[in-house]
């Protein structure tokens, strides 16, 4: 059916509707539904909606056409009128679907705050793990490592706090790091052990 034929056929059917001819009107609505389905389904698939959505939209358009059929002037062409209604309903349909999508994936601020607060547990957990690792160190070394590596204090401040020199703090820190490396590695390097032993006997 060419556009001109379709225009003529549907215009005639719309005029018949005003005379109360239900059969002609019903046939026209069926033809319109077929054409709409064919043109709208691929369009909706392209934006990620399924075929049943196309059917919903076709029904929306048919209802709109029917309810607003008085706004069509029999002296005017029918297809531009139908096109404007189809376009309006399509845009309205997409807007509604988008609103539905937004509602279904929405992140309420309460939920979001819980997510943000989540890492507090992780921080506690990692402190606990650090404690477990630091347990291999003697008390004096542990104090310095904790102050510098975990709490982030400067060497100078730590030295002042423990009433020793910065050099002493540095040396203790190095020893502690070596010991930690040794504890982390199940097969400790040979050279480290004698030196540690030597240090302890000094």
């Amino acid at each position: 059916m060419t556009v001109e034929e379709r225009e003529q056929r549907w215009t005639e059917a719309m005029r018949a509707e005003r005379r109360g001819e239900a059969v002609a009107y019903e046939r026209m609505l069926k033809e319109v539904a077929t054409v709409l389905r064919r043109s709208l389904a691929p369009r909706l698939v392209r934006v990620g909606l399924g075929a049943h959505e196309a059917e919903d939209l076709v029904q929306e358009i048919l209802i709109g056409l029917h309810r607003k059929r008085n706004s069509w002037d029999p002296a005017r062409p029918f297809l531009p009128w139908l096109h404007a209604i189809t376009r309006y309903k399509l845009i309205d349909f997409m807007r509604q679907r988008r609103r539905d999508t937004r509602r279904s994936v929405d992140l309420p601020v309460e939920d979001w705050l819980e997510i943000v607060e989540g890492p507090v547990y992780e921080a506690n957990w990692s402190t606990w793990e650090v404690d477990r690792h630091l347990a291999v160190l003697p008390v004096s070394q542990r104090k310095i490592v904790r102050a510098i590596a975990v709490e982030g204090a400067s060497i100078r401040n730590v030295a002042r706090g423990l009433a020793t020199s910065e050099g002493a703090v540095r040396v203790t820190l190095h020893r502690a790091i070596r010991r930690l490396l040794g504890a982390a590695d199940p097969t400790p390097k040979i050279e480290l052990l004698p030196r540690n032993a030597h240090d302890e006997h000094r």
Partner: protein
Amino acid sequence: MMSTDDLIRSLATAAGTRRSVSLQTAFAVTGAASLACALLLVFSVIGIRQDFAEMAVRMPFAFKVVYTGALVVGASVLALYAATPGASATALYALSPAVILLVCGVIFDPTGLPIMGRTNTAVAFCVGHILFLSLPAMVLTFVFMRKGAPTQSLFAGAVIGILSASLGAMAYTLACKNDGMAFVATWYTAACAIMAFIGAVVGHRVLRW
């Protein structure tokens, strides 16, 4: 959800039940009723100018009537265009006579009267009265527009605003004491703009179908 064939069958049974009053007829009735309401309000609430008979034959009054008339005609064409799906957009040119009159009124004002009116409160007074007079027209034209099928609700609402404000302004010409053409062109148009804004906001909510 019912099947499409069932839906079509049930729609088809309603064929021919809606008596076809054309949109144009419905609009003519709406427009006449709106203007009648505005005139009634002028006579009952505001009262016409004391020197009306003497003023009515002068140029400033003629300009007011012609300008508001051009607005009414232009906005009417636009309203019918907005209510009809797929209508030709050349209807937008219908406002051009009013725009030309507006520009001429502001630039070549032969009366030389101040643009802010005769008194300090003239602007607020005139604009406020026009807004008041356009309210019944706005309600009636919204009812009309809901009978039509506006496919751009913001635009249709704005057109309703312009139309009702120009109807209100047309009625207000009987009472307005400011004869400056620049005053009329500027502040009557401002009232139209305010109503257009209100109409667009309301239309966006009310005119969906």
